[in-house]
């Protein structure tokens, strides 16, 4: 019997990522892409219209199902209600075997709520999925903050999987049939949106080619200034480790590299005064070259870098600026 999978996401990249994972699970998988309209717009995924969402999953999904979340502002609980309606027996011939989403605040709410509503099991941080010999869905994910990679077997159906964000290849642009499924409503009291204040995005850690990050090796908040010339000389983006953003709050969270911040894909990642706790290392796995400046030979970053300058960052950083200026 074919595996039936519902895919949905907060944005088009995510929708493609979830659909690619679903299509890759089994050749005969039936993949249904869920689109939620709410507040007079396409809410999940954020798209100009349903046609745009359908184009993204061309060749990947068998059908696009569209639910109407009503006039109010969009919410994760309404999205969860749509997922539950789609995955339950009412949405198709058999209940869905899996629901795939991609991590984002509203997607987390939708996943957690849908898992309960469907009496399902849920797994987060999924990098990849497969099927074991017994037909159970398996999930590959980082465990304990990235100490190891784990394989989870999910013994309940549907399995609600929240994937890590990643780029998926584009669909083939072929047309996917669209089915309108009508109105869904959340069972819980609504959260009222009072207002939105856009956050000016000044930082692009995920897309930066060079990232220079600072950690607890810095003695004071003002000392962040000593790496700024290095950041400028390299044309880099400035990042930081967890204590700097979450404990000391010397830099905003948008500069946090690691498990609870951003994962980088840079050509060069330069860790300045960062010991390299596992949550941080998890966020730099995608860097091509990792260099570090550290005075502690036992720091975990030493075993997890390509180049390690052993020394005092307060002396090495200015020397690096001079070396780059002199040779550039």
């Amino acid at each position, binding site marked *: 019997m074919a595996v039936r999978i519902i895919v949905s996401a907060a944005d088009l990249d995510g929708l493609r990522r979830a659909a690619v994972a679903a299509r890759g699970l089994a050749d005969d998988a039936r993949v249904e892409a869920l689109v939620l309209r709410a507040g007079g717009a396409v809410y999940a995924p954020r798209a100009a219209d349903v046609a745009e969402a359908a184009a993204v999953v061309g060749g990947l999904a068998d059908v696009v199902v569209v639910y109407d979340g009503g006039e109010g502002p969009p919410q*994760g*609980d309404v999205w*969860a209600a749509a997922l539950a309606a789609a995955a339950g027996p009412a949405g198709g011939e058999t209940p869905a075997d899996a629901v795939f989403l991609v*991590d*984002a*605040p509203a997607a987390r*709410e939708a996943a*957690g*709520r849908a*898992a*309960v509503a469907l009496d399902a*099991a*849920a*797994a*987060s*941080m999924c990098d990849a999925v497969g099927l074991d010999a017994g037909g159970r869905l398996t999930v590959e994910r980082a*465990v*304990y*903050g*990235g100490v*190891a990679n*784990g*394989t*989870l*077997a*999910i*013994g309940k159906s549907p399995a609600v999987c929240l994937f890590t964000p990643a780029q998926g290849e584009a669909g083939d642009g072929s047309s996917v049939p669209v089915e309108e499924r009508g109105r869904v409503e959340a069972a*819980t*009291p*609504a959260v009222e949106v*009072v207002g*939105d*204040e*856009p*956050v000016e*995005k000044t930082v692009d850690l995920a897309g930066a080619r*060079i990232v220079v990050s600072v950690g607890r090796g810095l003695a004071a908040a003002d000392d962040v200034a000593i790496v700024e010339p290095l950041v400028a000389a390299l044309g880099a983006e400035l990042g930081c480790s967890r204590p700097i953003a979450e*404990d000391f709050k010397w830099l905003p*969270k948008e500069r946090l590299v690691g498990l*609870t911040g951003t994962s980088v894909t840079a*050509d*060069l990642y330069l860790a300045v005064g960062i010991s390299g*706790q*596992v949550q941080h*290392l998890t966020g730099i*796995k995608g860097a*091509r*070259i990792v260099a570090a400046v550290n005075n502690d030979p036992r720091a975990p970053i*030493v075993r997890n*870098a390509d*180049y*390690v*300058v*052993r*020394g005092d960052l307060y002396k090495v950083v*200015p*020397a*690096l600026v*001079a*070396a780059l200026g002199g040779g550039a």
Partner: protein
Amino acid sequence: MRIVVCAKHVADSTEIRYDEEKGEIGLRGLPTKISDYERNALEAAVVLKEAGEDVEIDVLMVGGEPQLKTLKEAVAMGADTGYLIEGGWEDPFDPVRSARVLARAVEELEPADLVMCGLVSEDGYNGLTPAALAELLELPLVAPAVELSPSDDALEAVLDLGDVLRTVRAPLPCVVAVDSSMNVPRLPTVLQVMKVKSDRIVKLGLSDLGLSAVALDESVAGVELVGTASGAVQRKGTVIEGAPEECAAALVAGLRDEGVL
């Protein structure tokens, strides 16, 4: 106002190592603590208590005897009563199961206005328990919250959604997941922890909540860790030592050879 904070006892995540030879995650004998993210939730609750009149804070923790010290630490941060749910073992990889145990406990206590959680826990990092809890309790979810202003019948909050700071108003009661950027949690002193008298700790068995471990496992537990592998990326590990200027020149030369400068 009554606030219930769900706090988790975890092994210190900075001390966990993977034993590549045995293929095991070393969790035994490690220092334990309140999960960092739940400390943010506790701090947020204590700040509300300090600012308002007549705010009562209960802490919920799943565990047994080993968790008692951690629960006392949580209470010492400024809560009134700590509830230890004995036998309600929490699998870090099955957030729905955790949420079912916590939801039953929340229902069992005096009605709460706010049920507060960390955005994630420092073991599973799932981030799904607050939403699952909200669904089980049929309450709104306010997450990820960076500011909280409760009134008599509503909670106004600011959420950090990455590209936008959203102000929302939710009716009480509701579930809140606190973003770690909201505050810097206080550290209770050893004396404050010692002063937490045993009458401020209440032990609840699963049977007190109308739950059984067997039934939970059979009907709820759905996620099982079946294998582990090293998560480390192989790196070159070239160490450069010497005077700062020499080191800098050597690193720049090395990076140019790699083609990344």
